[in-house]
């Protein structure tokens, strides 16, 4: 208790010299935002905090730590200290047993950082080791850089402990969350941070948002705001910009479907292609440079001698006039230097569906219709493949086009509002995707895992198994096929938590091992081969469809069923593009 009081006094004294630019003060503001309800109120708090900061660099870092992480999104840098490294370092700092004590605590709170904060605050060993001292936001960033440079797990472990020995428990909690890159999980995301910046610097939120799209970074956006240079947020070729994303059609009500145009949704990989006569670069959806994985594509675009151009589109394997299943494209994804054999076996094309930049002119602000007109002209002159668009008058058109899209090897349909501008992120109803689940399986629950965050304190993540009882390759009765953590209602989850109690046979930290007893029908987007799993397959985005209280484990689907589903997908009849065109190549 006395140690705790000393801690506060100590930092208070130092606060006078360092003022509000300290990392500790940042953490206190963030905690206050976490404890405040409503995104407007949260944004107001952050705005008034930002206004108290005088150094440009502090403002930049405050925005970065609150919304991006230790490093800016576009830097490609990460601290890369694994969850386990952090947790083990914390347990050893607090002198507690990691497996027995730490894991039990994390299960109870559902959050490692919250657990560590409390242990640091409560345990005498942890209190006596810590002599908090104030540091600026810049000094905090330096600590993240040191951690990044430390290559070994042992080194990171040592360094983390050294850093924590000079921090309050609150600083430690947020230091860990910031280290994880991404949101701080306090209900205060990029969108609210942008609004806060707009308020703090009396700018139009749309202007700030635009700067964020162009720079891809909250830190740079904050800097431009502060320096009153938002208008300089200009697009640069070979710097990727954030992608526009589609919302599932189920979640939206559409007033006038004829305001939309349909495109087939290709079963490939989203890609932003930057090109001019000297250079070509390909960027994935998470803004990583993937040019090296597709040298054939890059070479092909280089020969076109395009003026400065940015295209948004899809990479697909295209062979024998057919768009091939995603499973084949997977064989090329992630390869840093694909062999000529692989390239020849799985040739890819780029199908453009949007034009974002052309000859020194950004087109984001133009309507889809206008951008497409420019795209077609460009495609004609430079022989580019472009998605085909289909008018829709009513929902029966959507169904007809959807079925045809599937027959030609596509995933479904995209509906795009003809008057929409290009804006990053999910923008209401501008783009909608129409998809069907890739399939469903009846599985048994094998393990239940304690939920985290919002679901802390309940068992909300489930490892699901399929039967291999009659399979001579396995000795077990069931093997895992995937992990699902959604698709059920709160009520169903409660019932599930009750029903699993009598089935518990073992417990490993936050995980219960269960006797086969509960059957869950899951649906998923796709099946992929994955040699590292016991089943040899993984499901993409598995989720609960229904809890089958009416079925018993004997009714569960088998590995043979999974194999069959996979080969159906791989060998499914795909119609040739000679019969109907999903895209046009000029």
């Amino acid at each position, binding site marked *: 208790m006395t140690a705790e009081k000393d801690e506060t006094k100590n930092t208070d004294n130092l606060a006078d010299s360092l003022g509000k630019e300290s990392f500790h003060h940042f953490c206190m503001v963030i905690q206050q935002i*976490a*404890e405040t*309800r409503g995104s407007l109120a949260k944004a107001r708090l952050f705005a008034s905090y930002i206004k108290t900061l005088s150094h440009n660099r502090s403002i930049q870092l405050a925005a970065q730590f609150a919304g991006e992480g230790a490093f800016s999104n576009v830097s490609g840098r990460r601290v890369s200290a694994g969850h386990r490294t952090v947790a083990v370092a914390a347990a050893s700092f607090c002198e*507690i*047993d990691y497996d*027995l*004590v730490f894991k*039990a*605590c994390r299960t*109870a*709170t*559902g*959050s490692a950082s*919250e*657990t560590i904060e*409390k*242990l640091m*605050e*409560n*345990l005498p060993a942890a209190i006596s080791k810590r002599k908090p001292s104030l540091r600026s936001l810049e000094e905090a960033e330096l600590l993240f850089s040191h951690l990044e440079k430390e290559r070994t797990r042992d080194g990171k472990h040592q360094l983390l402990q050294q850093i924590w020995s000079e921090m309050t428990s609150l600083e430690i909690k947020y230091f860990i969350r910031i280290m994880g890159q991404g949101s701080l999980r306090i*209900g205060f995301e990029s969108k609210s941070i942008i609004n806060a910046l707009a308020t703090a610097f009396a700018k139009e939120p749309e202007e700030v948002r635009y700067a964020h799209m162009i720079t891809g970074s909250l830190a740079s956006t904050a800097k431009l705001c502060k320096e009153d240079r938002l208008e300089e947020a200009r697009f640069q070729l070979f710097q990727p910009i954030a992608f526009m994303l589609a919302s599932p059609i189920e979640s939206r009500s559409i007033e006038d479907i004829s305001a939309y145009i349909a495109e087939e949704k290709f079963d490939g990989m989203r890609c932003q292609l930057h090109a001019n006569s000297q250079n070509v670069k390909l960027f994935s959806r998470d803004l990583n440079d993937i040019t090296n994985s597709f040298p054939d594509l890059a070479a092909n675009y280089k020969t076109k001698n395009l003026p400065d151009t940015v295209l948004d589109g899809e990479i697909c394997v295209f062979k024998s006039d057919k768009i091939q299943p995603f499973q084949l494209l997977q064989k090329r994804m992630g390869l840093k230097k694909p062999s000529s054999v692989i390239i020849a076996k799985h040739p890819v094309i780029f199908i453009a569906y949007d034009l974002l930049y052309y000859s020194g002119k950004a087109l984001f602000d133009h309507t889809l219709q206008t951008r497409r007109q420019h795209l077609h002209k460009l495609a004609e002159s430079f022989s580019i493949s472009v998605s085909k668009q289909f008018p829709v008058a009513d929902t029966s058109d959507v169904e007809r086009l959807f079925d045809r899209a599937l027959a030609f090897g596509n995933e479904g349909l995209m509906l795009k509002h003809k008057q929409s501008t290009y804006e990053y992120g999910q923008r209401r109803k501008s783009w909608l995707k129409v998809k069907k689940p890739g399939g469903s399986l009846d599985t048994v629950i094998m393990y239940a895992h304690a939920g985290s*965050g*919002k*679901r*802390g*304190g309940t068992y909300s993540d489930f490892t699901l198994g399929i039967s291999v009882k009659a399979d001579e390759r396995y000795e077990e009765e069931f093997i895992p096929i995937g992990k699902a953590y959604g698709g059920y209602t709160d009520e169903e989850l409660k019932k599930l938590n009750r029903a699993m*109690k009598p089935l518990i046979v073992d417990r490993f930290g936050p995980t219960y091992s269960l006797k086969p007893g509960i059957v869950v029908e899951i649906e998923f987007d796709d099946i992929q081969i994955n040699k590292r799993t016991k089943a040899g397959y993984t499901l993409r985005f598995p989720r609960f469809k229904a809890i089958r209280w009416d079925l018993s484990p004997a009714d569960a689907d088998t590995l043979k069923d999974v194999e069959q589903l996979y080969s159906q997908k791989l060998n499914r009849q795909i119609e040739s593009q000679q019969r109907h065109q999903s895209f046009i190549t000029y």
Partner: protein
Amino acid sequence: MLSYKLEKNHGIILSKASLGLDVSGPVASHVFVSHAHADHLPRDRKMSVIATPATAALMRQRGFRGEVMELPFGETLDLERCSITLYPAGHILGSAMAGIDTEEGHVLYTGDYKNPPSPATEGFDVPETTNYFITEATFPLPIYKWKPHEVLFSDICAFAADSINDEAIPIFLCYNLGKAQEVMYALKDSGLSVQIHGAGYELCKIYESFGIPLGTYEKYDRDTLKTGKVLITPSSSLEQPMVRNIRRKRVAYVSGWATHEARRTQLTVDKLIPLSDHIDFFELIKLCRKLTPDMVYITHTPNPAVVEHYLANEGIAAMPLNLEVRDDS
């Protein structure tokens, strides 16, 4: 070793002493009820039990119709095969721990307890030592360490005052018995007028008759609940019209579980006030050290392993009494 039997999802029977502790029915010669929370009350509402006078009054208010042998704190009652002395448990009004002298040695059974005690109770006291310490451990991990009552009470007062300043009605989500009265006790000198859920209202009268001051309060009434007043109600009413229809409100969740940040989004409340009426991990270990028992039996716990581990480090033997999943044996 102590001879005992466990009831599924309920109490413990000390076989040699023929004494039931918070059991469901007349399963032994005598039955002790530690306090008036539902999970400790007998399901049989007509049997005969031993309890403190305050617990007896609360039990009767909650529908118990049987006979209660009222045993005040500090007095010893001699039974056929044991004698029993009650100690204040600091959990809610009337809550008692039982010190039991048996032919197997001295047993201290805690029921639910809190030390330092809630100021809205008779306090906390234990014997010097015991042979068998049967303790609850609702919060059995080192992440649980409660702030002093004064700190939490001033949080409660500040939350009420700030909400009223913003012209919102402060709502405290609390159990009707115990936590509700503790919050009222915290607010008693603030000059604020409290409305309390009907079921809790009747229990307040009993608190006052046993000398616990609760300030100015009245029964919840939709028509008179206006800005400037405070509402105290169980969290189950959060989704009911009673709370839903209040337009300008600020909601605080008052419970030991409020120490978990996840509760904020799970319940969508404005404030979490981690005021618990159970002992925290550190006080529990400290108490075990003081009592130097031959064996600690851990009950009412989601996870006995960590307490066992820490007690083992202190050289104190401990084992779980798993009332939740264990069958009678």
